[in-house]
């Protein structure tokens, strides 16, 4: 389907396809096998200016060129994810880490941090999740206590994408434990701050090229000016960030699904059984047709959500959640079917589809589980219905 992307977005897509072909495809199986962060590829992406596509010109990026940045991030993430969901999320997690500063940061914070993120000189990560705070952000136990001109952080963040690789972390912590989610605040913590260290690196089912780590804060003292927005606004900052970043995860899922569909269609055109190419069998044809239709429907939804954000729409949490839910469910279905079409070969590591199936699973879980997304969609729907009733 033709989405009539602008010339600039097409340039971006071509460039990402080149990076995927030249740098990602040759090593994706190795990165997966070795659980290795793709530093060299991340560097190439930065040199190709990919880190600046969602950051405004005045802070060293060029989001305006792409009409805002959400669609640009979507197109880039989709294209990279076709080759490897793990490399793509390592790239896209920068946007997630930068988002709290972009959305709610002060002018000084933007000027201080965004140019290095736009150039790719530094990487970013977003740290909300803890062992007891996943879907329920109110369970955050990491504390930030104001002490003169500083805040002192104590606690442990878990499963942080780009942990150990990023230099700038946006961290959600409790400043007033008595107030639950309203007692949360967002902070910027730089790598190397005394009291800030890394814990274990996770050994994951999929997206194994990406780094997922614990962040440990032990009397970690940061300047008070590193508070994003105001005390108590942390939950709001986190929700705004996730609403805006979800099309990115949806794009990752979409890319993984497209990559699996491409592999399955190619295999089916080459594999001969009973004297015929297997794509001449209706059983396979119907599977491929359904996969292609689902991928296209996911793309339409993801692109529409991104375009809404770029158009300056204020409320898009429902659409953003729909895109994430649908695209990630499609990714799981399509990658599973791709493995099925490749049969025994699909189950082997010599072919890329088993990795795609493992990579797809996380997209149903992170940045808000699909169950939480459905709650978001339902609550928006209930509100709309109530508003219509008046």
């Amino acid at each position, binding site marked *: 389907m033709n989405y009539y992307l602008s*010339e*600039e977005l097409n*340039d*971006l897509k071509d*460039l990402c396809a*080149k*990076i995927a072909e*030249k740098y990602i495809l040759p090593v994706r199986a190795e990165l997966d096998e070795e659980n290795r962060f793709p530093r060299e590829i991340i560097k*190439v992406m930065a*040199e*190709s*200016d*990919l880190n*600046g*596509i969602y950051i405004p010109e005045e802070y060293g990026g*060029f989001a305006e*060129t792409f009409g805002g940045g959400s669609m640009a991030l979507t197109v880039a993430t989709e294209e990279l994810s076709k080759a490897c969901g793990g490399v793509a999320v390592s790239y896209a997690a920068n946007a997630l880490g930068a988002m709290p500063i972009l959305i709610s940061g002060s002018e000084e914070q933007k000027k201080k941090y965004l140019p290095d993120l736009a150039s790719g000189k530094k990487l970013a990560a977003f740290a909300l999740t803890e062992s007891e705070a996943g879907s329920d952000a109110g369970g955050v136990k990491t504390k930030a206590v104001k002490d003169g001109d500083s805040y002192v952080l104590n606690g442990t963040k878990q499963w942080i994408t780009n942990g150990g690789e990023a230099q700038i972390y946006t961290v959600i912590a409790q400043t007033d434990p008595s107030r639950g989610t309203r007692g949360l605040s967002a902070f910027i913590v730089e790598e190397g701050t005394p009291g800030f260290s890394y814990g274990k690196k996770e050994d994951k089912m999929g997206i194994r090229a990406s780094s997922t780590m614990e962040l440990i804060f032990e009397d970690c003292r940061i300047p008070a000016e590193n508070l994003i927005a105001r005390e108590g606004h942390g939950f709001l900052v986190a929700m705004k960030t996730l609403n805006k970043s979800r099309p990115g995860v949806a794009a990752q899922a979409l890319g993984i699904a497209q990559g699996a569909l491409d592999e399955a269609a190619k295999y089916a055109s080459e594999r001969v059984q009973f004297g015929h190419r297997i794509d001449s069998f209706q059983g396979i044809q119907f599977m491929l047709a359904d996969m292609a239709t689902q991928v296209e429907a996911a793309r339409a939804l993801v692109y529409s959500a991104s375009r809404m954000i770029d158009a300056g729409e204020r409320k898009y949490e429902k659409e953003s959640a729909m895109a994430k839910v649908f695209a990630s469910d499609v990714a799981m279905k399509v990658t599973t079917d791709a493995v099925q079409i490749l049969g025994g070969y699909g189950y082997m590591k010599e072919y890329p589809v088993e990795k795609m199936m493992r990579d797809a699973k996380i997209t149903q879980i992170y940045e808000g589980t699909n169950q939480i997304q459905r709650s978001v969609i339902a609550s928006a729907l209930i509100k709309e219905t109530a508003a219509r009733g008046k």
Partner: protein
Amino acid sequence: MRIVVAVKQVPDTAEVRIDEERGTLIREGIPSILNPFDEYALEEAMKWRDKLGGTVTVITMGPPQAEAVLREAVSMGADEAVLLSDRAFAGADTWATSHTLAKAVEKIGDIDIVMTGKQAIDGDTAQTGPSIAASLDWPQITFVGFVRELNQDSIVAERYVEGGCEVIRSSLPVVITVLKDANTPRLPSLRGKMKSRKIEIPVWGREDLELPEDEVGLDGSPTRVVKITTPEILSNGEIHHGESEKLAKLLVDSLLGSEVP
């Protein structure tokens, strides 16, 4: 450091076939690309520009559509580009081509180095680089696999030749032709792509270069391509299976019995 990189637009030879009757390449439907060897020259030029400052100007001689490879070079990081295009340039052999390119280098002026790929993947002559040097009356270092030093006065380069490596020092200005060993060409950047879409690329013709008619194009070319053919296959290979000792004996016997000079 002011560097000119001379590049060529070539057909993507992976799929090129030869028209047996006419003795020419069948170009229809074959995408045109920047000569892959020229990417190494461009990268080498940009690498030293990034280190020492200066400019990289990329030039090519060809039909109007050859502008595409100049824009591609700009998207990769070249500062400026000039297209040499004129009906009078058509049919040029390597002598006329390099003479025209050399004139353009003189017109740009104040150039320290001209770089080219070691050869183009269509003609495979490897003559244009050396011939530019001859036309400019500059020294040349061909088949450069590594540039050890470069400063405002001189260059020290490793020249990879069969059976060894020559280390050559030369004064500037100089022409070098670059091998793929020299570097890994960078990808285009987004900023580069944006610049490449906007940049004005001047087109210089014969008169701009003040070249007489008999020094350009077909009229200025001392050589003529009479025919291009695929080499005839004189004999087919044989495949034998079996134990290595027997196979070795078979090979020795057949070599002894053959007419291999």
